């Protein structure tokens, strides 16, 4: 079990390694955007509120995109069909991907958080370990939703459209633009169930040093979404197809 999962993770990392431009984009773009936001809000206290949300947002969005396109490529190139005719369990395939991309997400978060703290002056009062745990969960959430999205897309054009369809509504309802308790009640209750809301809540709690049982519940909600998305995603990996 472990051997094939690790082989798959190693293979995915090798593929990324051969693509230095993608590595550069994944590692640098989040910091640049955090820097831009910090600059926009230079003379206001807003960055202290929005900054942590951004740290939660990037691993989620980037991993969603990367996973959905990578698994779509596996489906279209025939490599997935070949792998599933070999003694590779679906779980080994999925966890191999999850492991590789979570590692990248952790490096990405490390760079983005360092930049936010030391260059942009963001204050993180809570535990760094918890911050990375939440960021890694966000990355896993993006990976699992991306895996699911790839099953419902036939082309790269379609899969990229899933990003505005699945990610932007979550961003709008997460409380970054307007705090959730000020939203119309229907939107507020939808927002309360979406995983990105909890990702942002948890990360804001850690940044403000106000972690409590609500933070734990938020992390559990994220884990539940990951489990459901991985389950749906694995059901779409079929050994036999029409």
């Amino acid at each position, binding site marked *: 079990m472990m*051997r*094939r999962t690790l*082989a*798959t993770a*190693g*293979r995915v990392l*090798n*593929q990324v390694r*051969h*693509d230095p431009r993608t590595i550069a984009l994944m590692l640098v773009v989040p910091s640049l955007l955090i820097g831009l936001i910090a600059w926009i809000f230079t003379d206001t206290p807003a960055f202290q509120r929005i900054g942590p949300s951004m740290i939660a947002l990037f691993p989620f969005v980037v991993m969603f995109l990367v996973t959905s396109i990578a698994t779509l490529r596996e489906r279209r*190139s*025939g*490599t997935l*069909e*070949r*792998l*599933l*005719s*070999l*003694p*590779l369990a679906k779980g080994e395939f999925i966890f191999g991907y999850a492991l590789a991309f979570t590692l990248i997400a952790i490096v990405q978060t490390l760079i983005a958080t360092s930049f936010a703290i030391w260059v942009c002056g963001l204050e993180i009062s809570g535990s760094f370990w918890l911050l990375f745990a939440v960021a890694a969960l966000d990355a896993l959430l993006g990976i699992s939703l991306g895996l699911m999205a790839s099953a419902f897309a036939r082309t790269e054009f379609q899969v990229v459209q899933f990003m505005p369809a699945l990610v932007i509504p979550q961003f709008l309802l997460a409380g970054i633009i307007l705090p959730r308790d000020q939203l119309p009640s229907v939107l507020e209750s939808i927002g309360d169930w979406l995983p990105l809301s909890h990702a942002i809540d948890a990360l804001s709690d850690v940044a403000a040093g106000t972690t409590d049982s609500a933070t734990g519940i938020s992390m559990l909600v994220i884990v539940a979404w990951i489990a459901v998305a991985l389950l749906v995603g694995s059901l779409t990996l079929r*050994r*036999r*197809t*029409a």
Partner: protein
Amino acid sequence: MNKSVCIDVQDLSVKRGKSLVLDQLSFHLEAGKIIGLLGPSGSGKSTLLRSIVGNQIITSGSVTVLGQSAGSKSLRRKVGYMTQAASVYDDLTVRQNITYFANILGLSTDEVNRVIQGTDLAEQASRLVIDLSGGQRNRVSLAIALLGNPEIVILDEPTVGLDPVLRADLWDLFARLASTGICLVVSSHVMDEAMRCDQILLLREGKILAQLSPFELMQRTGATDPEGAFLNLIDSGTTDPQSDAPSAPVSVPRHRAAVEESK
């Protein structure tokens, strides 16, 4: 049924949407021969090969491979499969591609080296697949199919787009593989390649037109080249009053008998 039967197909039908891709095929294949699956594009070759590998949802009938139902878990190490598109990772080197699949199968570096040598890829081993020619890409895909000495090797159009020299090299390799006693099925839409096979399975519009040796093909049709022989067979097939019957073509057992006689 004798013991060297490696693939046994009974009344296999596959429907995709409303169209019948494979129409009640029945045949069996023996190990130790190159079996050529020939037919024009769209005749159902890939679907038939996918059914043997166990990747295809079949509508009815049965496919038995080495005595087990196609796609059984225990067959996953015994069947090497090369899909029609070279199913390899463009952004990995030749060696990284083969090593990954070897790791999935739990095989050593020696085995990776063996298939790299066997498919003549030693010089390209550290190059990215995206930088290779079409023929080299195909050979990477073939190398992966040969990992772990599978008892059944299914190759879907392995020679498509190759130059004549490489094509001849590959057929020599196939002959060596078949002589080791494995069951080798190679599909092609190039009729000339039929002559390199020990046995030919001719497929057209989801039905088996004939199962016979290249010699019998030429003798029966009186044609001077395989292309002509195939056209002759189609002509005689369409004038056959039985041809629109729902069952498999009645001519198949006769060909089988002919194969037995020729031994």
